[in-house]
């Protein structure tokens, strides 16, 4: 059985109502469309069903909406007059900030992993493994109180931004 004949078989297995609705909605594949159009020409019961569906479709499209009471808008505005004005989120988290923070951590981890791999003596097997970090005097870089303070603020800001981002996502979906 060819792929096309398998596809046609699958189409034909779908109930005719479903096929007709897909046709009316414009969701039929090219093969389905041809098959339906052939049926509409040859099968009067399908044609009748199609007309019935079209009539229902049209009625639904043009059916009137229900109207609430005359005081509806006024009631709502009276309620929201007591509410604080929703404020625009000027501190909205920029996704680039999140990407930069993530990139920093990924880069740091990658450097550490690559460095550790270069330290391994592959010829001596596991027993010969030793990990020697270069002897860096970190105090030269991070000894300054200003640097330490800045790092602490950076970490706090990053965590606060992440929390705000999560909260906004939760509100957006709620």
């Amino acid at each position: 059985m060819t792929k096309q004949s398998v596809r046609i078989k699958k189409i034909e297995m779908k109930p005719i109502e479903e096929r007709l609705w897909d046709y009316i909605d414009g969701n039929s594949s090219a093969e389905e469309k041809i098959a339906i159009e052939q049926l509409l020409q040859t099968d009067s019961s399908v044609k009748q069903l199609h007309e019935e569906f079209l009539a229902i479709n049209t009625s639904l499209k043009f059916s009137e909406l229900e109207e609430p009471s005359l005081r509806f808008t006024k009631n709502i505005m009276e309620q929201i007059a007591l509410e604080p004005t929703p404020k625009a989120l000027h501190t909205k988290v920029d996704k680039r900030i999140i990407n930069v923070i993530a990139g920093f951590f990924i880069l740091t981890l990658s450097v550490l992993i690559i460095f550790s791999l270069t330290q391994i003596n592959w010829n001596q097997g596991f027993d010969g493994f030793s990990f020697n970090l270069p002897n860096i005097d970190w105090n030269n870089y991070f000894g300054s109180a200003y640097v330490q303070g800045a790092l602490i603020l950076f970490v706090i800001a990053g965590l606060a931004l992440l929390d705000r981002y999560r909260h906004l996502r939760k509100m957006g979906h709620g």
Partner: protein
Amino acid sequence: MPDQTTDVALIDQVLAGNQSAFAELVERYKKYVFTVALNFVKSREDAEEISQDCFVKTYRSLATFQRQSKFSTWLYGIVYHTSMTFLRKKKMDKVSIDDEETFIQLESKESDFRADKAEKKSRNEYVQQAMKMLLPDDAMILTLFYQGEQSLEEIATATGFEANTVKVKLHRARQRLRDKLELLLKGEVKDLIH
């Protein structure tokens, strides 16, 4: 349906402190929101309460609207979830939202349709009547798809269902609507197309 840019402009005005701009949003969407709510609760008083609640909730959370979807999609999501919560609180789920018989009985009590009336009804009136006999989910999907002009993906976003699930639900809703029409017309569905 209102232009997306205009909705966003109104939202910006509200966020800038212009509360009256929100009244315009309410005017624009009140019928849609009320109709969807009415599909769920079948009572105008309850639907009005839910609709007003939805707009107040929308106002409160307006700053969190991320503009990744249409405002109408976001709004209908609020309506859907608020309506479902309302139904559960009213303990109508004891009767089951899926309990077709109960909804038919409820509708029979409220409906002014009389099978013995000789009056002629237009096609649209029969469809409207049949819509009121549908289950909340069915009526909601038909309203959002046809009157709300929401795509299947947008309905999926609003309700939390998968897009394929929405497609299946839409198909079933149409079928059930047809069944209700047949019930109303007692087999005279063909008259609708003439």
